[in-house]
């Protein structure tokens, strides 16, 4: 029998990268400069590369006709386990950067732990991904500073974006059932342990960027249980279109 918890655990990790990669893919060709366009596409490419590794592994666990593509493209919305943060729209470059930064800081902390997983496949993917994520974090942190400490307009835009997206950060540290099981087996990461470090790092960068730490009383959650925001349906309608309209074909 397949290891359902391991399968779910992998999706929980990989779906974040898939949806964020997809969101970044929307921007390709529309960036504020060629250099940022290339850099964001690079991040998208890295994330989707990681996704392929994870899903190929998940497909092996699932067996049968499962493939990286059936997992990526033909699940229902309620079966995607990504956090709400990564599905938020590309409202403007400030939102893109804020979303990226809030994810990257988490991602590095997470992969840094996952590389010590007892599961050798996950550990290998994590090692490779960590290098990439460190680069992403450098890029997004740099831009947080540029926008925060740039012009009045950029400051107010990035502050707005940060205020709006901050409510999605807490979900990153919630344990799912699969998380708990995989933690017990020495495979998964205890994300609750990353929280303090995470907010400390955000604090440092935001301080340097002269961005105020948003005060948030209530956080949003639901993504990890497949309860997404209304954006998700539109992401999937587009992303799944070919697989849905032309089922069971090779490309």
């Amino acid at each position: 029998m397949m290891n359902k918890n391991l399968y779910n655990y992998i999706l929980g990790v990989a779906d974040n990268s898939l949806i964020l990669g997809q969101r970044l893919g929307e921007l390709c060709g529309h960036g504020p400069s060629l250099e940022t366009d290339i850099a964001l596409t690079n991040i998208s490419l890295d994330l989707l590369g990681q996704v392929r590794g994870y899903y190929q592994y998940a497909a092996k666990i699932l067996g049968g006709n499962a493939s990286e593509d059936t997992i990526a493209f033909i699940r229902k919305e309620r079966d995607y386990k990504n956090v709400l943060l990564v599905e938020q729209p590309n409202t403007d470059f400030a939102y893109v950067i804020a979303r990226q930064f809030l994810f990257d800081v988490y991602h590095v902390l997470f992969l840094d732990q996952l590389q010590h997983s007892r599961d050798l496949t996950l550990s290998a993917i994590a090692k490779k991904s960590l290098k990439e994520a460190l680069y992403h974090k450098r890029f997004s942190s740099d831009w947080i500073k540029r926008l925060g400490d740039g012009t009045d307009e950029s400051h107010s835009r990035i502050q707005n974006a940060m205020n709006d997206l901050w409510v999605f950060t807490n979900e990153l540290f919630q344990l799912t059932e699969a998380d708990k099981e995989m933690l017990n087996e020495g495979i998964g990461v205890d994300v609750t342990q990353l929280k303090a470090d995470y907010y400390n790092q955000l604090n440092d960068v935001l301080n340097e960027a002269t961005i105020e730490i948003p005060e948030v009383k209530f956080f949003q959650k639901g993504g990890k249980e497949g309860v997404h925001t209304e954006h998700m349906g539109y992401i999937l309608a587009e992303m799944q279109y070919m697989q849905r309209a032309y089922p069971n074909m090779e490309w």
Partner: protein
Amino acid sequence: MSENQIKNLEAEFEAKISRDEKIEPKDWMPEKYRQTHIRQISQHAHSEIVGMLPEGNWITRAPSLRRKVALLAKVQDEAGHGLYLYSACETLGISRDELYEQLHTGKAKYSSIFNYPTLTWADMGAIGWLVDGAAIINQVPLCNTSYGPYARAMVRVCKEESFHQRQGFEIMMKLAQGTPEQKEMAQDALNRWWWPSLMMLGPTDDASVHTEQSMKWKLKRKTNDELRQQFIDQTVPQADLIGLTIPDFDLKWNEERGHYDFGPINWDEFWQVVKGHGPCNKERLAARKGAWERGEWVRDAAMAYAEKQADRKEKQVV
């Protein structure tokens, strides 16, 4: 400078070109050479950037992860080509902002092929196979063009383009070998992209300007019609190989010429698109201008931040 001095410089310049030596940015060059190169290199750069749009249109809808990643990488390569080419162009004493300005106001052109819409996934194959294929035929000779920065940029560009072309052909092959629906999709894409691809190689020789001068400067080695023939001769067997039909009833092998004969090209359509009335001219330009305008505050912020940082460093030094 006296007229004589200029004559001498010109003679030296031309001798250099005929010895197949490169002209470098710091070298003296005739103003017309500079202007012609600015026009051509920037047009080429703009084509890369605008060319990101029709393919970018399918990134979110690519049918597999592998294809999505490959398409993203390809469009990113195009951005990279844009970068090299703008840089090469800047060595001629014009800024990237000025070049963008020319694009956005319609003063500068870009390849008309990108004014056609991408309607199905198969268009990703057709663009790689046909559009990049035609581009390579246009571009390979430029690896030996006389202006150094342009020639070196083209070496990098051509290497990646031929990779893209193989990738496009492979997409088409996969479709052509797939289900009837997929094969139909591939054939439809070939039908729609074939003639515009032929037009990419430029107007017929009798309608073409600048040719003689461009030959001398090694901006051109063959005429448009020769290039077009080469493209057709190369592409028809590839279509045969994967079982797709070129949409040209007049197409047939001419034993005597050693080339394919082909039907008449609809030059009215060509000029319509060149003059801005193609299916997507407005959208493409609006997308580029929109990205540029929406990006202004970002570029301003980066500039302001860099200045602040420089000030801070200076103060630390003092």
